[in-house]
């Protein structure tokens, strides 16, 4: 291995059941550089980083990683070992103790001691030193939860660099930050570089790529497409490397007959509950027509899920804007209001949000619609069972009986149960948040077919998806969101992967 390389990755392969997450990934990182990694959702970025930081162990993947001249073999207690070797990672979600001070957090688990007691004055003076080294204007004694999200992110970076870190991985560090906070973070990364620390910088945002990276590796479907100096890319080439692939999946044919506008959203602005300075959705305006499949595209962290959740009355604080259903204004404050207005949300994570795993398929399907089976107090269990059977059959749920617990089903079948539950409540607007994530091709196709049938019957569907193919294959119109703002609404005829990605990464 050459002296000027800090990291050399050779032919890494990693599979999950049904998916090959990394295919022969090969690239190397120059010592002291800022190395960007770009790719679509699901391209394999996170998997790669989890391998480097010791979340996945040596025997869970194949291939060779050379770090700082030695082969990296992480086994038990790997996360700690990776840190000892000098690899540290800052995740999107913060991992600080909110009630403790900046100094306490930075030295957590390695507090300086004097005669068995914590040496507080040394701890805070050393914290001050570290903060100054990276020119961070933060009080070492400030309690973490009193700081803005941006400053917390910087503390996290300072914490990572307090030890002997040689390689710092930043996994989409700016997704939760306001623009001002992003500027400060960019400067900090530059300071790290001048202090000789190598950074791997994962991002979707082209602006940031061109501002701070020296080299960029592009991943697509688990494979490395190319690694080149940043100066050799343009917006267009970078995007085409990220998406350049043939449409491989099949989608059922449909012949949309669009009716009147069913749902109209006007100037919808929502405050981010995690960062009050930020809007999780900003001034969003769009409409959805009867019988339409309305796709929402956007990268992870773009605010697409948050927008939908806020419409549904279950996210953040609405600052302004209105929702109209069939031309009538609807004040929606909770999922109940939303359902009464004729919407139904199939949430992103079926296990934690969509299903009650320990309950039967039957109970899961009927829980939102028990009113239809109830007269006075009593639930008519036979009518309930019959109806649930009809819907389970319609969605082709495969299970020995409806009394089987939802936890025993495969991902695809679980999703069909959630869809059966949605259909039974008979919404005018069905909202699907990434409906085919993590399910097999066969079940995907059945879900697509069902979507076609529903729109033919006059239902409108809003579909968020991480997969551009799915968005292009199914939608009549596609709304692209980036950083909480509606960038554009495209007709499916005028859209392709490059155009969507162009808007999603904020290149326009």
């Amino acid at each position, binding site marked *: 291995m050459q002296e000027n390389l800090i990291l050399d990755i050779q032919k890494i392969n990693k599979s999950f059941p049904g998916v090959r997450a990394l295919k022969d990934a090969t690239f190397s990182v120059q010592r002291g550089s800022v190395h960007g990694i770009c790719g679509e959702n699901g391209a394999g970025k996170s998997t790669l980083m989890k391998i480097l930081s010791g979340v996945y162990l040596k025997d869970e993947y194949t291939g060779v990683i050379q770090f700082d001249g030695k082969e990296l073999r992480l086994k038990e207690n790997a996360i700690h070992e990776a840190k000892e070797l000098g690899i540290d990672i800052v995740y999107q979600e913060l991992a600080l103790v909110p009630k403790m001070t900046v100094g306490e957090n930075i030295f957590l688990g390695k507090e300086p001691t004097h005669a068995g007691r914590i040496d507080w004055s040394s701890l805070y003076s050393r914290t001050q030193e570290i903060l100054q080294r990276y020119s961070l204007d933060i009080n070492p004694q400030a309690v973490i939860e009193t700081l803005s999200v941006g400053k917390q992110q910087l503390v996290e970076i300072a914490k990572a660099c307090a030890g002997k870190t040689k390689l710092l991985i930043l996994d989409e560090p700016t997704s939760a930050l306001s623009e001002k906070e992003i500027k400060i973070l960019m400067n900090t990364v530059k300071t790290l570089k001048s202090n000789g620390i190598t950074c791997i910088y994962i991002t979707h945002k082209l602006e940031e790529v061109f501002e701070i990276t020296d080299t960029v590796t592009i991943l697509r479907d688990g494979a490395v497409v190319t690694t080149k100096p940043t100066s050799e890319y343009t917006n267009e080439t970078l995007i085409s490397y990220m998406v350049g692939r043939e449409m491989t999946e099949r989608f059922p044919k449909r012949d949309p007959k669009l009716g009147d506008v069913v749902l109209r959203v006007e100037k919808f602005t929502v405050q981010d509950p995690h960062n009050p300075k930020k809007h999780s959705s900003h001034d969003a305006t769009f409409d959805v027509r009867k019988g339409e499949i309305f796709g929402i595209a956007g990268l992870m962290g773009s605010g697409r899920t948050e927008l939908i959740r806020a419409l549904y009355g*279950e996210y953040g604080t609405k600052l302004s804007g209105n929702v109209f259903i069939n031309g009538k204004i609807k004040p929606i404050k909770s999922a109940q209001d939303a359902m009464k207005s004729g919407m139904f949300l199939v949430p992103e994570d079926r296990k934690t949000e*969509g299903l009650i795993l*320990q309950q039967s398929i039957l109970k899961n399907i009927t*829980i*939102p619609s028990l009113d239809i089976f109830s007269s006075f107090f009593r*639930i008519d269990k*036979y009518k309930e069972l019959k109806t649930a059977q009809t819907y389970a059959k319609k969605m082709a749920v495969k299970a020995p009986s409806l009394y089987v617990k939802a936890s025993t089903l495969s991902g695809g079948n679980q999703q069909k149960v959630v869809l059966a539950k949605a259909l039974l409540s008979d919404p005018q607007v069905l909202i699907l948040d990434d409906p085919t994530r993590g399910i097999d091709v066969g079940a995907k196709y059945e879900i697509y077919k069902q979507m076609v049938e529903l729109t033919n019957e006059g239902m409108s569907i809003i579909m968020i998806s991480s997969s551009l193919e799915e968005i292009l294959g199914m939608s009549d119109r596609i709304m692209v969101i980036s950083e909480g703002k509606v960038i554009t609404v495209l007709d499916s005829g005028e859209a392709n992967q490059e155009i969507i990605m162009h808007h999603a990464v904020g290149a326009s």
Partner: protein
Amino acid sequence: MNSDTNKISVPSFSQIRARLKNYTMIFALLLIWIVFGFLNQNFFSARNLSNLFRQMSIIGFLAIGMVPIIVTGNIDLSVGSVTGFVSALAAYFQVYVFADMFPALLPGASPATILLFSALSTIILSLLVGYLIGCLHGYIVAYLGIPAFIVTLAGMIVFRGGVLGVTGGENVGPVNDAFKFVAQGYIPIPIGYILAIIAVALIVYQQIRRQMNRQRFGLERDSIQRILFVSLGSSLLILLYTWTMSQYRGIQNPVLILFIVATLMTYVSNNTRLGRYSYAIGGNREAAQLSGINTKKTIFYIFSLMGLMSGIAGVILAGYVGSATPLAGNQYELDTIAACVLGGTSLMGGEGTILGTLVGALITASLINGMSLMNLDIFWQYMAKGIVLVVAVYIDVLSKRGAKS
């Protein structure tokens, strides 16, 4: 679907284990009874059994209310103090208010009429107070968003203060005979048998209707074994209980009320929206919320029901003791939670049955009863109760671990 119900198959070991698990606590109860039966010949006397069931009835009412609370992932630590407070209030009104008020209001009425009016008013007032306290707790937990543990811990302290305030730190009593009758009285033996036969008839009718409904909706009928097991089993238990109690003085009033309330609450938890919503909230609150369930309202109702149950328990307690004491209801919350846990209610929420919990209440009551029959010191009773609780939860943990692997 349902195709394998009539197949004759040899159950595998894990199936047997899973089936046995449902009955673990019933076996434990039988074991405890057999042990005490051997150690003391009086244990199985009609008189002692009658006392045993009467003793468990107060915790029984509280446990019935506690199951939905724990199922929704909440807890109520105040039930002991609330029961004590209601009993104190009942005794106070009996002795200081109604004893003078009704003779003045109804001049010329017979003493028996006055006793009856006084008892009825006390009962209505007690249930109302219990219910309103439950509503208050429910409102604070559900709508103000303060954790149930804190709210009901505060309630426990506040109403213990209430007990002391009402009783003035002394015993208040005696309550009148009509009021005592609710807790201490018996159903006349012939009427007891008639009620038992009506219950059996209802069970049979329910079974027939169930089979007819299943047929009407195109479902296979239950197997003969199942029908016999369910209807014969429960009918026999009812008749056996009625017969045993008839060897003494008959079915105890509070036990009959407990049976009726438990049946109603089982119906509510299985066959109404309120019941379904509670299990859904406990199973996955996020999913329940996104399914359009009004989680706050549900939790409010659940707490108000708990309050009503505490009200009933307070009436029975006051009638049973015959007066109110400053320590009335002390530590009942712990016995109640223990009964729920023994009966298979998961403190994680989402799981638990009324019937199981009553078995749990019977286990603790049997331990106490058996040990006091043997004249063991009271400290042994505390220790035994604690140990049984930990062992029961450990069995639960083991069986869950077994189910996962």
